[in-house]
């Protein structure tokens, strides 16, 4: 590093202004970086905590753990974390210029060839979309072709879009839909948009009520996602418990738990119940069962964005290492904290241009 001047001179007026700008940007950056790190660390912690509770009834969770508050040591997260990292990598590369064709090409070139044997931990929507891609179809038909357009597979990886478009919920919702058109349709895209928009607002430090309201504003009023979210918010306002929440949003006559309108509503309800505190929000989500790894990951992303890295309990952060690539070999070895830094840096680069 070369140094100009002696360091003893008083800087001139222009230089002082430049220093103020730089330090303001650095402060903004450190806040943005802290929130981004908190967001993805919260997501990974939620994924890991919720993992063993997936598809269990709240009563069964209570029977096994009393209250599930500790991550199973050494197990790590699942598809939620790995797909979020994959989405973040694409965002870092392409930013606001991301297109569905780019995402489809990434599936074809980076995801599908590296799958050796059965895919683990992916949702119906991603697996169905990859079968459609193998059949030569293009988005948005790839997201419509299979029957799981409503899957929460997009909502689970929506957080990076909210980080990248921090403070701009409409842009976050637009970007996540670009990704979603490859694998999802209808309510699955809406679920992703609600989460991305909510994270974008959580990244500003807004209160949980405001964050959830931003999620709601990102989806049409006359949608299943909006109806489900409103019902969940109402239960939380009325201080209802797990049973009331399940009664309000869970589809009892369907055997799978990965419905985005249900998962997003449970996740945001848990975030509200937790008052935006990372531990409280994530624990609330995990103990609600259903698609618990995904709902806890979403709750963790929202709360972590609001509270920053230090908001994530240290004992949970200690369990989050580089991902193994169990679900997506292409992201093996990546750590959410590094990815968060790259997301913020790429956003800054885009702003300077």
């Amino acid at each position, binding site marked *: 590093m070369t140094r100009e001047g002696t360091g003893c001179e008083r800087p001139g007026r222009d230089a002082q202004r430049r220093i103020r700008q730089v330090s303001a940007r650095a402060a903004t950056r450190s806040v943005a970086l802290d929130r981004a790190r908190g967001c993805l660390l919260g997501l990974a912690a939620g994924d890991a905590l919720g993992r063993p509770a997936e598809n269990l009834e709240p009563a069964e969770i209570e029977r096994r753990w009393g209250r599930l508050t500790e991550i199973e040591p050494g197990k790590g997260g699942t598809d939620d974390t790995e797909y979020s990292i994959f989405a973040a990598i694409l965002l870092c590369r392409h930013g606001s210029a991301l297109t569905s064709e780019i995402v489809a090409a990434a599936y074809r070139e980076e995801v599908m060839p590296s799958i050796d044997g059965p895919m683990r931990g992916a949702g*119906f929507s991603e697996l169905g979309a990859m079968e459609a891609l193998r059949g030569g179809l293009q988005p948005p038909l790839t997201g419509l*072709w299979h029957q799981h357009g409503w899957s929460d597979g997009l909502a689970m990886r929506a957080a990076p879009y909210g980080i990248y478009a921090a403070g701009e919920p409409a842009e976050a919702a637009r970007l996540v839909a670009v990704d979603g058109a490859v694998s999802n349709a209808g309510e699955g895209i809406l679920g992703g948009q609600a989460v991305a928009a909510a994270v974008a607002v959580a990244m500003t430090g807004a209160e949980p009520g405001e964050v959830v309201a931003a999620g709601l504003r990102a989806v049409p009023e006359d949608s299943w996602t909006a109806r489900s979210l409103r019902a969940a918010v109402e239960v939380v306002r009325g201080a209802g418990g797990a049973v009331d929440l399940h009664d309000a949003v869970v589809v009892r006559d369907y055997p799978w738990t990965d419905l985005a309108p249900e998962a997003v509503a449970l996740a945001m309800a848990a975030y509200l119940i937790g008052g935006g505190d990372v531990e409280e929000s994530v624990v609330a989500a995990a103990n609600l069962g259903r698609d618990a790894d995904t709902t806890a990951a979403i709750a963790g992303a929202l709360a972590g964005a609001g509270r920053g890295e230090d908001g994530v309990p240290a004992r949970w952060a200690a369990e989050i290492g580089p991902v193994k690539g169990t679900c997506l070999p292409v992201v093996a070895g990546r750590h959410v904290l590094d990815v968060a830094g790259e997301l913020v840096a790429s956003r800054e680069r885009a702003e300077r241009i």
Partner: protein
Amino acid sequence: MASGDRIRGAFIGLAVGDAVGWPAQRHRSGLLAPWSRRLGRELDTFAEERRITTLPVPFALNQQVGPLRVGPSDDAEWLAWTARTIGEDRVTAYGELAARDDLRVRISVRVALGNLARGKPPPVSGHDNPHHFDDAAAVRAVAFGAAGLDPRPDAVVTNSGDGVLAASAMAAAVAVAVAGGDVRDVVAAALAELPADTAIGAAARIALEVADRADDAFAAVPELDAALIDHVYSYGVAAAQTVPVALALTVASGGRLSAAVPAAACLPSLADSAPALTGALTGALTGYAALPGRWCEAARTLAGCALPGLAGTDLLDIATELITKGEQHDAA
């Protein structure tokens, strides 16, 4: 003006297709005592655990064997229910079903009935529904097509998106067929209801290309399986798959039920409803008199395995009631 013989052909053709697929026996075994189905599930586990390829089939043991004979199941019963209630307000008609606890219904219908009971009226009842895409409404739409009525007010109770488009396509196709149309007219009428940028619209066009290349309906089966079915999901009732298969096999068979319906039953994932939809289209094209007599005899009498109140009902009588209503309507 609609032909009575073709309307009977649509109804009995659907029932023949409904009886052909392997799921019919599963549905009909619902009439047996629960313990025999429980033993069946245990035999499945036995086969899995012992790595045995002798697969259990529904069995009667000491009960009446009638339910396990070849015969119609849920789709024929829903067609009969729809024809009988066709003049009623749909919310009222479904409201009566929602109050009953003895029905066996599809996921889309079960969720819709639950939605209605929780104060979610149509179209939300069919929209906020994980199986909004299935072909339950498409099956019922055969009755609306035969009567020359709009199937959508009924379809939106249980379905949305592709599920409603499928109902429109089936009703349009059946309406054209019973009015004397040929295979080409039927396919054109269906396609006109299926926008190309929907899954069902894209799949229908792909399936019809497969049909054009195939020597006959049976020959089209492997390519239809490869082109339309991803085998990722646990259920095979998507209208975007079953309706395109029905259209394709209708074309590939030249509108002959005896060729088209068995081919549809050769797609095991879709065997619950694709043969029934195929039977409705081909039966409507040839008319009842041209259908194989022994199959018509086997498929006419409803079992009551889905809607118990219909046990013993002759589907041909139901078709005749609909024809008579139509004639009275025309006369008035």
